[in-house]
């Protein structure tokens, strides 16, 4: 669905993207992670047709991004909605720009309203909504026309658990229906919830790509042994074998053992610091 190869984007002396390559298949949720300035937002803007790369090649369903606008749903990092209109009026306008009319528009609004629990504030002006409700409204705009490619840039920043759950559930459903989703975030546990593949960006390029299991293979977990008068912490790639070996070599009585598997945070730290 999305093919980006060797994208380069410069703003004056600053190179925002430096050979950024990423493919996302239909039905796949890709978690795009990286520090601030890694190039995530620039990449999202290029996919959305809001900026052109200086070099490289990008297609959405085989089309240039600008020609594929109807196939893309975008929720930018910051709230980008008209404060004086209601959620329904916003959805009507953006739906209209994506070619939805009357019955199809009403059906689409009903669908995203159910999926993101907008019913209670569908006819409330954006300016009167809480931050979490505004986030849901913005995600609804992105999902409204059932785009085959959804771009969400930190859609859960600062939101309550209810909003997060509703949004993640809606995205899982869309992916199950075949949509490709690029999900930019700093909250890595969300990516585990979404069963997303990972793309780790650094310095304007992707430095690691794959499923969490693939990328975490070889990443050390941690074994903690409570020996009464001391606590022993040992990093271990193969925790079972290492634990067995430790138990045969320790002469003190063992009060307790805990094994911690590597987390996505560990993965991110390891990849980002070693790349």
């Amino acid at each position: 669905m999305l093919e980006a190869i060797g994208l380069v984007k410069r703003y004056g002396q600053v190179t925002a993207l430096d050979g950024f390559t990423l493919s996302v298949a239909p039905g796949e949720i890709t978690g795009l992670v990286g520090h601030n300035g890694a190039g995530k937002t620039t990449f999202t803007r290029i996919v959305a047709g809001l900026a052109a790369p200086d070099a490289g090649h990008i297609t959405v369903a085989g089309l240039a991004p600008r020609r594929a606008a109807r196939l893309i749903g975008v929720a930018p990092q910051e709230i980008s909605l008209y404060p004086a209109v209601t959620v329904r009026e916003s959805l009507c306008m953006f739906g209209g720009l994506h070619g939805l009319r009357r019955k199809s528009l009403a059906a689409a609004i009903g669908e995203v309203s159910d999926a993101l629990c907008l019913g209670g504030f569908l006819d409330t002006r954006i300016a009167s909504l809480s931050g979490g409700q505004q986030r849901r409204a913005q995600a609804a705009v992105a999902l409204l026309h059932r785009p085959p490619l959804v771009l969400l840039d930190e859609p859960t920043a600062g939101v309550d658990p209810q909003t997060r759950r509703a949004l993640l559930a809606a995205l899982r459903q869309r992916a199950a229906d075949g949509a490709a989703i690029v999900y930019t975030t700093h909250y890595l546990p969300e990516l585990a919830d979404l069963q997303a593949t990972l793309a780790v960006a650094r310095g304007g390029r992707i430095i690691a790509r794959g499923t969490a299991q693939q990328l975490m293979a070889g990443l050390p977990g941690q074994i903690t042994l409570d020996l009464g008068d001391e606590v022993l912490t040992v990093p271990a790639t193969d925790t079972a074998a290492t634990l067995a070996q430790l138990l045969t070599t320790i002469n003190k009585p063992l009060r307790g053992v805990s094994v911690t598997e590597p987390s996505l945070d560990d993965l991110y730290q390891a990849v980002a610091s070693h790349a």
Partner: protein
Amino acid sequence: MPDDSSLRTRALRVTALTRHNLLLRRRDPANLITYVITPMVLIALFKPVLTRLMPYGGTAQDVTGMLVLTSTLTLQIVGMSLLSERTWRTWEMLRSTPATAAELLIGKALPVLAVLLLQQVVVIGYGVAVAGLRMSGLPVLLLLALLVWSITLLAAGSLLATLVRSHSQLTVLTDIGAIVLSTLAGALLPLSMMPSIARHIAPASPGYWAISMLKAAIRGDAAGTLAPAAILGGIALVAGAIACMRLRRGLALLRS
């Protein structure tokens, strides 16, 4: 997949944008109300003075002058309607849709043009109904003049919006610019009563041509209407072209 470039699809997108922008205008009527009430008050206050100074044409001077003065202040409505898209960060949301830059601009411009025309028609209507303005010309000639002046304001306001960096800059420019340029154009006092230097530089103000055009339309002078209309059309064309070029770049030049 529907054809995004078909005429019908384009028209439907422009309709959606126009409807939405009309809604935005309805939700924020304060400026329009101000610019409708203010000229009515000014016309009533200045009429006794101007009719004494100008026994023939004093009312026309009063109505057209106040109309040009206050309609120039509506540049702020035009500018704000564009600048607000940056404040709300909605311009990029619009640009990420299938709508083209031209469609976005038309959808934005039509409701603002309607507001500008409405303000001027109401002021002229008040001039005729209350201030005793006598119309000798065809209404269609006056409507044409009002349309030309509205388009000029729309183009100038759009250009201003692409040049300034904030709402406060826009307010300062439109307030000072509108009052100075309109006064120089002879909106408050007839040019014949102003210092000779003012009379010499008056043609540099678009308001000068607007007052000439409107007075000619009121007295039914088609040639006297069309000549200044052509000059204003030229100003609108240049300002509009520059504004469009800058707007097509997604208000990228408007970084604060």
